[in-house]
């Protein structure tokens, strides 16, 4: 029955595919308006420099160039700075100093895309280079170059944040039988969605109405930000319409507000024409928000028998020149304090220092809930370091320590309440699927022959679905989400949501939730998102929050409709509502299946024959403030072989067992996991953005920033367990990011495992062939 209507648990084929497979998607760069102009941006070649002068005359002399906007032009408009999501401020355009390479310096508006680019090439800026600081550890030392001269505070510390029992943790370490300590650097990476960022801004002077099409994961929040940033210019929130059309991948990179957006809006207001701004790939990687860049020192205290007792973590977080991370206001280091992971530590203390450097701002997710990959990688690596120290099998050590299933809901020592879990079951399944015992035997045999093979495990716990609002807000706006459902007289339904799909398949899965709750076929339910003029307010799609929050709102809105529908059914069946039951996706008189009404019949009646005293129509809205986060989890096992000549790591197998609670659409969930795993593989072995001492970016385009292709990506093998969330209306937890969170540690652990007999405890990611080969050479085992 669920299969027929396409309800929960059914692999319904995606509704959104119809346009995408025909090339009929509508992405921002596909939007074309009459009279539209194009904007392009000139950027700084220096990481830190004073702007002595900007000569725009040659650019303005080019036929077709209509305007050049510099920082000085923004001052009278009070638009040269804008607030970040983290209570910092960020330059829209600099008036005197640039703080990182590729920072926006001027915007050229022209009649054609090509002419705008010519204009950018013709702008001449006279810079005076200033000392550069790129290393956050050095940036925090006394006497370091000050990145932010505009601040009263004359150092590079943005904030210090800590959580946990410091004294108790220190004591636990002092008393511990075994302590392991590991420095871990999680490098700067970039989400690099295949679609870059962009906007078409169209300001209607007569009505004072601004319409923007933009690549945003959070259209409503953006609307409010625009109203806050440009309210003084007369842009008023009821006359701002943000449309997030089809989005070519987000992964957190399309949450922040970038200067280009503000400039495109400004250019449209200035010229009275629609203005299109689309980044190229270099701009996207070089200037848009980065992810990670955490310098971590982690320590674990345990008993000799392997019982984990205490965890102490100190981190320096590089935020670049502005703190433009996308974290909930209360948590500047995101949810990093889920770092105790799947283990019942008695004591823990975590501290994070945010540092300014002459690098682009950011600190966004890269397909994970706020800083959760950093946390999962740290603990899962550290557990393996402990296993090596104790000469214990890493699977056994995990099994010994897992938070037991009966302990849920479990309150972690750093304050999180894990909703549900069964970690041992997931690891056991992964071990069975991959043949763990056999692999260990094979490894021993190979090692005896001098061949290098490694097996790595990661048993991670995710934390997704922010709110609840008591803890989570962005710029004060609570992190709820919303759904509005209208059931039309003919029994078809329209669902509108405050979240925004970037490929996750919302048009299908949210329709499935409604199908399940209302008994309407999934094909009769249209889902619409991304237009702030029509959708209810929501905080958007990131941090795997759509299913946990908007999914719940959808289910609850549907249930409101069902409540009303029940009254209408009773009216139609001439029965007491108490005698009506919802069964087999219909209302029937209890025990009398022949006396029933379908939702379609009820919908028609809601507009044609509703009970006296009842409002006509069949609609509902729900704003859902989750009582708690959800905690998806999983166990991954990776097998690698190492080429002793080149140091190349080859992933032979990778088994991923995920538990994301109730599964709405297994096909889509598997697809999400495949993609997440690949974005876990990428930073583990390939991706990194580095900077030289002058602040020059290294890896600023796809020639040098290495996204894995089909040839490097293994054939992921999936398994699942289902442990529903007790507090979510349908028990679902969210899954888009689990695999990105869990995979890097499994891969790193596998490589370390292959080399462990040489005394290796840790290798920083990305694990390049030369890092591996150096170890082989140093130990005399290279080919």
């Amino acid at each position, binding site marked *: 029955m669920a299969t027929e209507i396409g309800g929960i648990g059914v692999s319904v*084929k*995606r509704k959104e*595919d*119809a346009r*995408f*497979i*025909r*090339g*009929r*998607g*509508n*992405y921002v*760069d*596909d939007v074309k308006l009459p009279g539209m102009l194009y904007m392009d941006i000139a950027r700084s070649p220096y990481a830190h420099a004073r702007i002595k002068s900007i000569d725009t005359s*040659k650019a303005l002399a*080019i*036929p*077709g160039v209509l305007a050049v906007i510099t920082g000085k032009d923004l001052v009278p408009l009070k638009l040269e700075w804008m607030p970040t999501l983290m209570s910092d401020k960020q330059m829209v355009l600099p008036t005197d100093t640039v703080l990182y390479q590729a920072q926006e310096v001027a915007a050229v508006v022209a009649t*054609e*895309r*090509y002419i705008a680019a*010519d204009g950018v*090439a*013709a702008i001449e800026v006279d810079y005076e280079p200033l000392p550069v600081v790129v290393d956050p550890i050095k940036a925090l030392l006394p006497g370091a170059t000050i990145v932010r001269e505009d601040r009263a505070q004359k150092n590079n510390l943005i904030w210090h944040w800590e959580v946990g029992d410091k004294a108790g943790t220190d004591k636990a370490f002092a008393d511990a039988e075994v302590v392991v300590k590991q420095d871990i650097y999680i490098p700067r990476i970039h*989400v690099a*969605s*295949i*679609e*870059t960022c962009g906007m078409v801004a169209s300001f209607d002077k007569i009505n004072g109405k601004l319409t923007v099409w933009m690549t945003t994961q959070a259209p409503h929040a953006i609307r409010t930000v625009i109203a806050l940033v440009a309210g003084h210019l007369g842009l008023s929130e009821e006359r701002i319409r943000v449309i997030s059309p*089809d*989005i*070519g*991948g*987000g*992964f957190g990179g399309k949450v922040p507000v970038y200067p280009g957006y503000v400039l495109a809006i400004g250019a449209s207001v200035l010229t009275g024409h629609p203005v299109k701004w689309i980044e*190229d*790939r*270099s701009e996207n990687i070089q200037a848009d928000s980065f992810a990670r860049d955490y310098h971590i020192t982690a320590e674990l205290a345990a008993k000799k028998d392997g019982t984990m007792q205490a965890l102490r973590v100190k981190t320096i977080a590089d935020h670049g020149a502005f703190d433009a991370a996308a974290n909930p206001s209360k948590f500047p280091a995101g949810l990093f304090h889920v770092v105790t992971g799947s283990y019942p530590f008695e004591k823990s203390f975590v501290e994070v220092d945010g540092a300014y450097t002459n690098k682009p701002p950011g600190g966004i997710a890269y397909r994970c809930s706020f800083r959760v990959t950093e946390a999962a990688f740290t603990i899962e690596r550290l557990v393996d370091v402990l296993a090596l120290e104790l000469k214990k099998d890493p699977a056994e050590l995990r099994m010994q320590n897992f938070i037991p299933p009966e302990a849920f809901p479990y309150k972690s020592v750093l304050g999180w309440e894990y909703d549900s879990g069964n970690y041992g079951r997931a690891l056991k399944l992964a071990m069975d699927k991959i043949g763990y015992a056999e692999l260990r035997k094979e490894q021993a045999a190979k090692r005896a022959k001098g061949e290098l093979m490694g097996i790595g495990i990661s048993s991670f716990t995710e934390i997704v679905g922010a709110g609840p609002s008591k803890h989570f807000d962005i710029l004060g706006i609570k992190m709820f989400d919303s759904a509005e459902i209208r059931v039309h007289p003919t029994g078809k339904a329209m669902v509108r949501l405050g979240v925004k799909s*970037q*490929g996750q*398949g919302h048009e299908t899965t949210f329709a499935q939730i409604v199908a399940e709750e209302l008994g309407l076929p999934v094909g009769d339910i249209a889902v619409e998102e991304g237009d702030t003029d029509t959708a209810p307010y929501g905080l958007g799609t990131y941090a795997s929050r759509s299913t946990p929050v908007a999914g719940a709102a959808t289910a609850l809105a549907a249930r409101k409709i069902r409540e009303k529908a029940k009254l209408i059914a009773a009216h139609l069946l001439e029965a007491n509502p108490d005698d009506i039951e919802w069964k087999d996706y219909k209302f029937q008189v209890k025990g009398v299946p022949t006396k029933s009404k379908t939702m379609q019949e009820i919908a028609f009646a809601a507009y044609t024959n509703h009970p006296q005293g009842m409002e006509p129509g069949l609609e509902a809205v729900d704003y859902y403030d989750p009582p708690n986060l959800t905690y998806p989890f999983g166990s991954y096992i990776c097998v690698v072989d190492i080429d002793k000549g080149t140091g190349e790591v080859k992933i032979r197998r990778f088994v991923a067992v995920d538990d994301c609670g109730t599964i709405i659409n297994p096909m*889509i969930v*598997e*697809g*999400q996991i*495949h*993609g*997440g*795993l690949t*974005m876990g593989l990428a930073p583990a072995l390939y991706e990194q953005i580095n900077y030289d001492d002058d602040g020059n970016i290294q890896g600023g*385009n*796809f*020639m040098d920033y290495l*996204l894995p*292709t*089909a*040839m490097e*990506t293994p*054939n*992921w093998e999936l398994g699942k367990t289902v442990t529903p969330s007790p507090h979510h209306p349908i028990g679902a937890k969210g899954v888009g990011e689990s695999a990105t969170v869990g995979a890097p540690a499994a891969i790193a652990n596998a490589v370390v495992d292959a080399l462990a007999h040489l005394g290796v405890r840790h290798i920083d990611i990305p694990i390049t062939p030369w890092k591996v080969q150096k170890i082989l050479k140093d130990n005399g085992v290279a080919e």
Partner: protein
Amino acid sequence: MAVQTAPAKTSGTTRMKIHVTVNGEAHDLEVEARILLVHLLRENLGMTGTHIGCDTTNCGACTVLLNGRPVKSCTVFAVQADQMSVATVEGLEKEGKLDPIQEGFHEEHGLQCGFCTPGMMITAAALLTANPDPSELQIRQAISGNLCRCTGYVNIVKSIQYAARKTRETRKEA
């Protein structure tokens, strides 16, 4: 004192007449020499199914068939396509019937955000024309010039295998 000034480069110098057939339809156009084929398709012809992802010939989002071969249309000038035929994602569906490759991507969940999909399908279609029964390795090799950030490629491979199967079956029937 100015000794000599190099003339500033301005846009819009050479314009050329070209004749291009796109998805079977002939077009006579006058374009600037530097217009990239992908911009010709997207801007001049309004065919926005072909996307731009990287600018450096790495990602393949802009893949089209040029005289039957898959190429990256952001690395070809439109003038180079004079007198040639171009096939894009918009031409895959014929007379209301989806190409097996389109069907495969839908059936096997070979796409998520859809941005790399047109290029990926064009590459796959060319592969199946040349090799109706590719192995998994051959499929992976063939699409190794097309980057996808969402799917992890597993289902793309399955989609192409689906299309290969379907094409072979259809041929057998015919």
